[in-house]
């Protein structure tokens, strides 16, 4: 069983946002694209976690600014109540479950929420945050806006959330879901701001770890801890000097009856308090003394372990940036752990990871990626499986750069990469922010497809510099991708880049002279192509220290110009 669809309306940066999810979903996106907000929104329709209490009543600033502005503009323009009613800012988070299979337990959990949508069977619930009474709300907001300037930036603060109430309903009958049913679907998360070890002056164990501990202890063990605590306290009491505080004063026997009633009782009797005053050790040291990375790993492992084996309720685990503070070895370990845990986990477990690390993405498989960009979610579920395999074998391939860079050029291989980077370096007139990525034998088309999917409609640009290789058909197919606005495809005139370099301007002469070769295009071109990238490397060095001034082949100039 998994959550396979989420729709968020009017919450923080999301006006209308929907996405699909898998059993393991990897969320990528630039900073500020709403990844954390997505997590917060997702928590709303689920049961408050056993580890943290969640306030499901939202604040004025949780409303999407655009929807608030639209509403107030309508009021200012004097729209009628019916029209106003339709644009009251209401926050909704809709969630659908799928992959129930024949598991009776899963069926029992979601059964009551069954409905049909476009002929398909879905199980859907929804979190709503809306005014209790529309009439009163409209009355009050009209009054509030009367005396204010609609161009104010923080209009959201004018929303009277005291008139709002939340409900979690089943959308097949709009009935509130009782706690007894909701408690079977839970969501737990490890946030990006991991722990407060370093902040906490008392150096106590992290509160979530405390609660994990509490859950794991059996009744007997808890009883023993209590016993031990009281025993410990009793020993203190039995110290002679301790007792002396409460002795009778022989000169005032009347006070005896007061003194007799005074006694010490243990504070901190609550198990949670006892446990939270335990600090975790790691090896010979305290865990809080260990580095952030170390603490991070332990935290992730404990957390994951606890939830993946939970059989009594469905658990959605959200881990923000597992790669935080981790060294290469530990990162590998964590990625592997997550991958294998997900593979063997039962039917009631789903994981969402948000990440900025190409390694995490490539190893956990690109088809699980969902990219957040310009307030929409792009799923790569249906991407070519050959690409998925390619990326998983090239974990260092910077897929994020390709997807998110403002200006990116795709090239065939290392030699092209070096050459173009050198050219960019030499351009003293402008600062470039162009990323050059070599795709080493993998086809351009696949990459162009995914780039298009994500960046369709925004202002990012991509350039493709490819070799002709005597394939006119291929050239035509690739040229078709060019759209003169954001995608620019150029092919060499000659067979490969080396041929075009050699035939441009006086390059042949200059290069043959520099390397002591015969001054003919074939030789020079072969020279550059031979010994892998070494010769190109030498050429680039010569270009960089000014020894040679190379004319840039036309197709490269064209791409660079278009990308500026």
């Amino acid at each position, binding site marked *: 069983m998994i959550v396979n669809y989420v729709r968020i309306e009017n919450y923080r940066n999301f006006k209308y946002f929907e996405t699909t999810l898998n059993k393991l979903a990897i969320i990528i996106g630039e900073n500020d694209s709403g990844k954390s907000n997505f997590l917060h929104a997702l928590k709303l329709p689920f049961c408050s976690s056993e580890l943290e209490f969640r306030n499901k009543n939202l604040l004025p600033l949780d409303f999407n600014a655009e929807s608030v502005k639209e509403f107030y503009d309508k009021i200012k323009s004097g729209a009628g109540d019916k029209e106003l009613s339709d644009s009251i800012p209401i926050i909704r988070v809709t969630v659908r479950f799928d992959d129930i299979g024949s598991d*009776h*337990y899963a*069926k*029992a959990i979601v*059964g*009551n*929420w*069954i*409905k*049909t949508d476009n002929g398909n*069977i879905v199980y859907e619930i929804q979190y709503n945050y809306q005014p*209790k*009474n529309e009439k*009163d709300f409209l009355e009050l907001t009209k009054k509030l806006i009367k005396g204010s300037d609609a161009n104010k930036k923080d209009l959201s603060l004018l929303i009277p959330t005291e008139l709002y109430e939340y409900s979690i309903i*089943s959308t*097949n*009958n*709009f*009935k509130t879901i009782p706690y007894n049913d909701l408690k079977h679907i839970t969501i737990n998360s490890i946030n990006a701001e991991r722990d407060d070890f370093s902040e906490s002056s008392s150096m106590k164990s992290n509160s979530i770890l405390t609660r994990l501990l509490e859950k794991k202890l059996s009744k007997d063990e808890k009883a023993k801890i209590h016993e031990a605590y009281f025993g410990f306290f009793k020993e203190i009491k039995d110290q002679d000097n301790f007792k002396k505080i409460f002795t009778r004063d022989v000169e005032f026997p009347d006070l005896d009856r007061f003194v007799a009633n005074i006694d010490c009782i243990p504070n901190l009797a609550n198990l949670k308090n006892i446990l939270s005053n335990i600090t975790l050790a790691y090896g010979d040291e305290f865990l809080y003394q260990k580095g952030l990375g170390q603490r991070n790993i332990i935290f992730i492992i404990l957390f994951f372990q606890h939830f993946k084996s939970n059989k*009594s309720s469905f658990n959605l685990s959200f881990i923000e940036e597992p790669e935080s503070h981790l060294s290469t070895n530990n990162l590998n370990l964590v990625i592997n752990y997550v991958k294998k845990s997900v593979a063997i986990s039962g039917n009631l477990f789903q994981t969402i990871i948000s990440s900025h690390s190409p390694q995490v993405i490539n190893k956990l498989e690109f088809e699980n990626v969902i990219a957040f960009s310009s307030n929409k979610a792009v799923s790569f579920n249906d991407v070519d499986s050959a690409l998925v395999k390619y990326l998983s074998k090239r974990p260092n391939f910077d897929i994020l750069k390709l997807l998110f860079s403002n200006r990116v050029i795709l090239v065939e291989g290392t030699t092209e990469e070096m050459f173009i980077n050198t050219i960019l370096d030499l351009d003293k007139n402008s600062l470039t922010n162009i990323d050059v990525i070599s795709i080493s034998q993998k086809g351009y088309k696949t990459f162009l497809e995914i780039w298009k999917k994500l960046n369709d409609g925004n202002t990012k640009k991509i350039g493709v510099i490819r070799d002709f290789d005597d394939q006119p058909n291929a050239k035509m197919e690739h040229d078709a991708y060019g759209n003169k606005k954001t995608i620019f495809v150029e092919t060499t005139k000659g067979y490969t880049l080396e041929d075009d370099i050699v035939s441009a301007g006086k390059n042949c002469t200059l290069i043959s002279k520099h390397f002591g070769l015969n001054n003919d295009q074939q030789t020079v071109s072969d020279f550059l192509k031979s010994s892998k990238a070494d010769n190109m490397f030498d050429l680039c060095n010569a270009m960089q220290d000014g020894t040679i001034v190379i004319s840039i082949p036309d197709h490269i100039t064209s791409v660079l110009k278009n990308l500026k």
Partner: protein
Amino acid sequence: MIEIQIAGAGAGKTYNLSEKIIQFHEENTSHKLIYAITYTNAAKKKINDEIIKRLGYIPDKVRVETVHSFFLNEVIYPYSHFTISEVYNNAVSYTLPTVHAYKNKKLSLLKQKFIIHSESVFNKAKMIIDRSNSKHGNKAKKAKVDFVNSHIAAKISHIFIDEAQDLDGDALCVFKILGENEIAVYMIGDPKQAIKFPGAFRDFIKQSTGKGCNVLSNNNFTKRVPVEILKLSNPLCLSEEKQTNTNGKAGRVGYIKSSNENYRLIIDHYKSLGHLIYIEEKQGCYDTHSSRNLFLPLSLEEKLHGIAVSRDLDGRLFIASIISEITERFKNSSSKQIITWLSKHSDLRLEREEYAELIQHLEQVLASGESSKFVVSSIEAVKGLESEVCIFILNQTMYDYITQNIPKAKHHNKNWNKAYVALTRSCDTLIFVLDQELFSRNNIMEVEGYLKNMGIDEITSL
């Protein structure tokens, strides 16, 4: 799987039921629920109490609900949209207008608000899970019904139904379908006490043949009904359902006359002790509790509900508090004064028809409150209950049935069963009341004669 058990009055149904529930609960290792279903809240409380007596608590996986609540929460609310494209999320149970056209109008108004009326619950539940219903005309729709049944079976393992004789054909059919779909269904009931739907349970039992259906042998033992009373009630039983007393108590039967000078004192005395006093229905100088109930017109209730919500109060509690306050005010206010108070207290603006309807109703209730009538229970209200001393106020109809002075066609009908219920409430003493006003054909002396012949004497010392 369906198992059906017939058990007469006082057979200890509740006790046996809770025993079975606890047994299956202890064997249950899965997540599935065990449901115990009854007809009334009072019966629900009885089972709850019995389980608590034996376990000390009600286990999480054991749910005790009324039939309506079960059908609504497990069948109608979740699945009506999916199978028959109707949405319901709430139910009401106030009396609907009797005129057909008005009633239908009301029902469709309710439907627009996603509210179902309790009298439609049995029928609607059947419609949803019965694949042979005409609403599921094609293969795809039947597949949906099957899918829904698989969901219900994934959640519930056992259903125990108490007082199965209070269910109608539709409800019984629903349980049959659930039983055919992997849920273990146990029904226990007494066809002799079927007052609402006299023939339904019996017919159901007759049709329950075939595999998966097991009709157990009758339990004709009674721990409650003493020997002397059985002499009166057994003649009303089919031969295979005649009862025998297990604790050897003789009990006694007697009668008093309403013309007795201490009559009112006697009635009040037994009422104050909490014993059951009942009559077939409101008649003569006897009112039944239900006929005195105060309720508010529907549109008024809706308005009050809205007002409650705007004040951040719970709708139902608000209305209940108003009703209880009106009842209090009846002691020293007129209907007009009550309405004035109501408007002020709840900021209520009444339309003309609402005002008229309300004042008429209040006058009615006020009138009945002022009368010197006796307020007793109806037989239907005391079904399932018992007390040491029971006072049965005889009327013509009940007398005819007890003496079996009725055509064969009327045997085992509603009134026949009412008579059986009325006779079997007491675990020690049964007292008949003879009130001439309630007899249209027979003279009280004839009735006295009949009773004396049966060995039943007038009770003089109380």
